[in-house]
């Protein structure tokens, strides 16, 4: 994010949203998790 110019980047939440999916892929093997993050464009 900082390479794009953003500041104050932070992952706020992580989720195990790939567990129990109807058609599992290899994503779980790679430790894939959903995340929510935020950042800000400097003033």
């Amino acid at each position, binding site marked *: *994010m900082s390479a794009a110019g953003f500041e104050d980047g932070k992952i706020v939440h992580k*989720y195990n949203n790939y567990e129990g999916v109807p058609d599992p892929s*290899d994503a779980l093997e790679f430790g894939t998790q959903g995340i929510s993050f*935020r950042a800000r*464009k400097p003033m």
Partner: protein
Amino acid sequence: MTHQPVPRISLEELRVEIKKEYTNVALDPNKGYHFHTGRRLANLLGYDESLYADLPESNIASFAGTGNPFSVGPINEGETVVDVGSGAGFDSLIASRLVGESGHVVGFDMTEEMLKKARAGAKAMGAANVEFREGFAESLPLPDNFADVVISNGVLNLTLDKTETLREWFRILKPGGRLQVGDILVEREVPSDALDDISLWTG
């Protein structure tokens, strides 16, 4: 989020496959995918049900995000919000309620069936402050310093060049503007053959 995998697939090839996958999610949201959809997914991601209580069921059913942009910061009345990869309009329609009549929401998506669904949802809700346009995450047809907030949900991971895509989102934000995004984090190194597996990119 800083690691940039280098797949041997082209942007065009990727876009074709993404459109196929998300056309299916628009037309048949309960078919069963590499990801959860709809109310179950919204619940897993911690959405407050009151945020989407008045959304049409069709727009809820095709929700396929990977996070919750509303859980990381506010969306305030009167703000201009851009939703990159708006899909069936779930997040855009929530944002349209939060910004109110004095605010404005623009959702961009490249999948025609998703755009149709999102527009129908806005019409059904009488939401005049939200519009859905065709567009790509990497090149948004908007002026510099346009938005107070950029939201997106499960889209950055579908782009080949994450830094360039984030630069584009940075460009359309006003100084001091906020990025509130749902995406994915891959905690283990992905082998090169998996990087070239387009079904992993689209799912």
